[in-house]
């Protein structure tokens, strides 16, 4: 059962590809496989739902690594949103999805009915989804389950907000990410990465901010060597 999958790890798969186990002998079917994003079980088969590269993590996890620019809200993800409106007790926040998310003004650290948070239309907020599904309006909060801000809330007096693809965002958020380590060698900067494909950076001067933004945008389609070469050229140039 594993072999059918392992054969294809690292290959490009397309939606509609089927991994069928009906032809196997009865006793070799008893292995447990965890289907990650992009794979779906359909009775005795596993169907591919997204186009991309099939990946494997030891033990038994398989998933499809796909490229996407359009963000779909999912519960628990931290995103950068832009406040678009204040309606009654909630703010309407644009997160780049199909509808705007709502953010209650009580969902900030230390906010009470009398002590309202200082949030204006046009501000950037780093928040987490508590409700995000296809049937309801998504809801954000700027506190964690203990009631602490934990880095979330309004930010970004200066700096630059730009969009990248979701694949690049996932690569940036990996612990000890290669791209971030290489960038740190260049000059000090602050960065906020939202899982909706939005990144905010701020460096000491405007020029450095723009350089960092351009480098991040160009990291999308480069291999590791090309990236290191480019960063070295920039470091020499400054």
């Amino acid at each position, binding site marked *: 059962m594993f072999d059918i999958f392992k054969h294809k790890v690292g290959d490009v798969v397309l939606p509609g590809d089927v991994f069928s186990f009906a032809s196997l002998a009865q006793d070799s079917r008893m292995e447990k496989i965890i289907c990650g994003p992009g794979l779906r079980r359909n009775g005795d088969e596993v169907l591919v739902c997204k186009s991309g590269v099939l990946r494997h993590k030891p033990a038994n996890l398989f998933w499809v690594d796909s490229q996407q620019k359009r963000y779909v809200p999912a519960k628990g993800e931290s995103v950068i949103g832009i406040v678009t409106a204040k309606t009654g007790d909630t703010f309407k926040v644009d997160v780049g999805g199909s509808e705007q998310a709502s953010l209650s003004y009580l969902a900030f650290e230390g906010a009470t009915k009398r002590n309202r948070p200082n949030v204006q239309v046009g501000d950037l907020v780093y928040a987490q989804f508590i*409700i995000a*599904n296809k049937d*309801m309006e998504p809801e954000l909060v700027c506190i964690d389950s203990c009631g602490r801000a934990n880095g979330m809330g309004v930010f970004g007096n200066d700096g630059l907000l730009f969009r990248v693809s979701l694949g690049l965002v996932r690569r940036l958020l990996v612990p000890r990410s290669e791209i971030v380590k290489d960038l740190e060698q260049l000059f000090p900067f602050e960065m906020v990465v939202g899982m909706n494909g939005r990144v905010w950076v701020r460096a000491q001067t405007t020029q450095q901010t723009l350089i960092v933004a351009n480098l991040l945008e160009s990291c999308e389609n480069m291999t590791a060597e090309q990236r290191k070469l480019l960063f070295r050229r920039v470091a020499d140039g400054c």
Partner: protein
Amino acid sequence: MSLMKLCVPGEKLCSAEDCIPGAGTYLRHGHIFASLAGYVLQKNEGEEPPVISVIKETEAQLLPDIGAIVTCKVTSINSRFAKVHILYVGSTPLKERFRGTIRKEDVRATEKDKVETYKSFRPGDIVLAKVLSLTRIYISLGDVQSNYLLTTAENELGVVVAHSEAGVQMVPISWCEMQCPRTHAKEFRKVARVQPEYLQA
């Protein structure tokens, strides 16, 4: 009782001497006029003059009353309530779809504040509920919107038929979970307990 003909509002039906105006009619200048569009019905009651009335449908409409068990379909959900369309009252289908609301507090009898609407209902589910009350909102003269307040806070009430995200009808496995037979994924719903007389042994 004899069905005469169709009429529209404002049509003169007969003179005031022949009949007594009934429902859907009014008396003006010694004549009876229709105020509704529908069938003209003349009821002969023996010695008294016949009563003439206008009715919309040939059969009387069955309205859900308080305490009745209704079958409804969820149309949209919200973090505070779920909106439904009432399809059947008891076992009789309704010709018109009445609107109903199931509030978050009325979904379960226990742990009312921990209810999540997304884990109880989804749009498209068929739900058995009981009528709590009816509110009529008069938008303008002649335009009334009725909204029924429903509850599922009993073991026998709740989701009866639900489809999974794969589109297949799910099988209930407990009072709060249903499973899709094809993808084997479990989803949360507030499931109605099947009545013993409907179970086929």
